[in-house]
């Protein structure tokens, strides 16, 4: 390490301690922000110290879970620099590289907008691109703009970098088409295809000629087996696939994982097809990073849950089940999964509109909440935009007397737990900052550890 980098690193690490003592956010991004301000090039130097290089993971939905799955696969036997708290901007990446001085391999979840800069600085040996859905348009601008920046970033990757893409996403799959060093993954089990594209499906028009795609199977949003009837642009050949998928309600999904190194049947202890995609991404990435098929299977079968994504938190004699919602595609999958597990009769949904949630809350109208609303006996709408959420639910068919509007998340949680049967489970759907607030509440009550203290 250069003398300059050493001094800057020291200053930044001191900032991390200070922010933890001050109790703000566990100090996960402050040191990185400081380092980035002092010398943006320091990130390049920190990344270059990783003996086994780094892998970068991005997607609109599932990047935290996919990265956590890859970590579960790779962690035995490898020291990782992994931004587990989800701090995924350039500053978060810098903080992680700074904190994990002895790491051998970087495993870095990266925000969609930050991907080009992180890739340019970190020079990863592998890049995983999971999917692109409409999300926080007030922050990212149009989906096309993100796609455009990703296309430029992937086109600039050196030939030796492995590009792993979800072949079932037309935009993302196309980014690997011209590369020799590429791996495409996807689902092949038409029994689980949805009867129609969901209401607000993105990427339904051919990336080349603009004609509507024909979907032989659509699994999650616009992810599936597509083909353009006009120009023939179609899903690429898949190197890593899930076949013979069996979904087990709110508990698990099992499938046959087929890879170039062989096939194995595995049981993922997380529900829903979207988690099958996350697992496929983690498997397709872990293989070129050196994981064996057995390591992949064992890691995925051991997997718990990523922070706030299908996380069960004990609350006295009851349990709180937290499912993060943040955009239409992700929330639709949460709704599907809840319906498959037998829809809950009581539900807390918390809608905030901070920058990290998206200041524009119009996305809640693109979520297909309706099937859930038909079966809910009591819905507690919470968060800073509780009233807006209440309006959405009532216009979606929820009887007004089944709705409580309680902007305070703490009171909404208490009310929900009060209505939950002994030993029962309360389902809470929070947006991102509401999820952080929920984690803070349960930590204060001693029900769980704050996220920055977890291992």
């Amino acid at each position: 390490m250069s003398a300059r980098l050493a001094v800057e690193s020291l200053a930044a690490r001191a900032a991390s301690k200070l922010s933890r003592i001050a109790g703000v956010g566990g100090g996960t991004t402050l040191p990185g922000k400081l380092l980035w301000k002092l010398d943006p090039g320091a990130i390049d130097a920190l990344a270059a110290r990783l003996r086994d290089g780094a892998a970068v993971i991005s997607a609109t939905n599932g990047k935290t879970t996919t990265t956590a799955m890859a970590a579960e696969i790779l962690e035995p036997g490898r020291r990782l620099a992994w931004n587990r708290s989800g701090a995924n901007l350039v500053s978060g990446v810098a903080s992680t590289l700074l904190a994990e001085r002895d790491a051998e391999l970087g495993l870095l979840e990266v925000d969609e907008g930050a991907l080009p800069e992180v890739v340019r600085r970190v020079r990863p040996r592998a890049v995983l691109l999971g999917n692109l859905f409409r999300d926080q348009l007030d922050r990212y601008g149009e989906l096309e703009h993100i796609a455009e920046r990703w296309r430029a970033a992937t086109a600039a990757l050196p030939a030796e970098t492995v590009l792993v893409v979800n072949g079932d996403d037309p935009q993302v799959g196309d980014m690997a088409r011209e590369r020799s060093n590429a791996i495409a993954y996807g689902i092949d089990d038409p029994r689980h295809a949805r009867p129609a594209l969901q209401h607000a499906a993105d990427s339904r028009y051919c990336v080349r000629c603009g004609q509507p795609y024909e979907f032989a199977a659509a699994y999650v949003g616009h992810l599936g087996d597509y083909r353009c009837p006009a120009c023939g642009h179609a899903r690429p050949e898949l190197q890593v696939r899930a076949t013979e998928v069996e979904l087990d309600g709110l508990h698990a999904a099992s499938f046959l994982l087929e890879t170039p190194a062989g096939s194995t049947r595995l049981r993922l202890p997380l529900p829903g097809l979207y988690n099958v995609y996350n697992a496929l991404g983690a498997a397709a990435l872990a293989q070129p990073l050196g994981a064996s098929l057995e390591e992949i299977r064992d890691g995925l079968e051991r997997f718990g849950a990523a922070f706030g994504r299908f996380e069960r938190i004990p609350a006295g004699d009851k349990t709180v089940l937290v499912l993060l919602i943040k955009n239409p595609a992700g929330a639709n999958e949460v709704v599907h999964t809840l319906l498959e597990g037998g829809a809950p009769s009581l539900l807390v949904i918390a809608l905030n509109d901070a920058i990290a949630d998206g200041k524009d809350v119009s996305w809640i109208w693109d979520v297909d909440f309706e099937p859930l609303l038909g079966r809910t006996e009591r819905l507690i709408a919470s968060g800073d935009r509780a009233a807006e959420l209440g309006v959405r639910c009532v216009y979606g068919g929820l009887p007004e007397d089944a709705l409580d509007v309680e902007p305070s998340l703490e009171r909404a949680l208490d009310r929900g737990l009060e209505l939950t049967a002994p030993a029962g489970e309360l389902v809470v759907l929070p947006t991102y900052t509401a999820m952080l607030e929920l984690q803070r509440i349960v930590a204060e009550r001693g029900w769980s550890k704050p996220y920055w203290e977890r291992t």
Partner: protein
Amino acid sequence: MRIRVGHLYPEYLNIYADRGNIAVLARRAALRGHELEVAGISVGDTVRPDELDLLYIGGGQDREQLLISPDLAGKGPALESAVAAGTALLAVCGGYQLLGRGYLGRHGDSMPGIGLFPHETYAGEKRMIGDVLLEAELVAGERRTIAGFENHAGRTRLDPGAEPLGRVVAGFGNDGESGYEGARVGRAIGTYLHGPLLPRNPWLADWLLSQALAHATGGDPPALEPLPDRLEAQAHAVSAQRARNRGGRF
């Protein structure tokens, strides 16, 4: 009474939850004993001006707007004759731009519009994103507020003397300079306020329904039975407060 609604290009222009506006119109019509009959009008479909009481066109990304603009050009005369004969219309964001005379991109590219609204749009440097609060007077002597959210790179200039939808209290509006937002031509209104415009502004939904009913019956716009709108008022208040606190800033 049956209210016939034509929803233009629903599978192309739906980026900001446009179906929320339709859902609000449908429910508020039903609560007053009317039935909203919504039909999609897409690429290749024919517009039948005399069979429409209300038209809706939403927002899309540049790519989707480009995909439908040649088809829209063909529909222009029929849409204009519908509006001239008293069909009500709501155009949002991208749809609002396309119903003007056209859009000039930053690289000299251009997308012609159909000229239903007297305005032109050119692309600006920075997107104008944030909460908005307007004051409008669609019925003389009835001043009301409209709260919403805008996200657009286009700067829309109304022709001299053209009627805007409202005056900007907080936010950017048509171009960030004029102090005006949206446009109005008779029963047709256009606006940048996207997504759940009507859920937060139920009076505007009722104004549209009333105009559509006037077309359906051939009479004057009827007064609609008031609804409690308790939650809607709360949602409006939060949104209006957001606009006052943070609207109109880059």
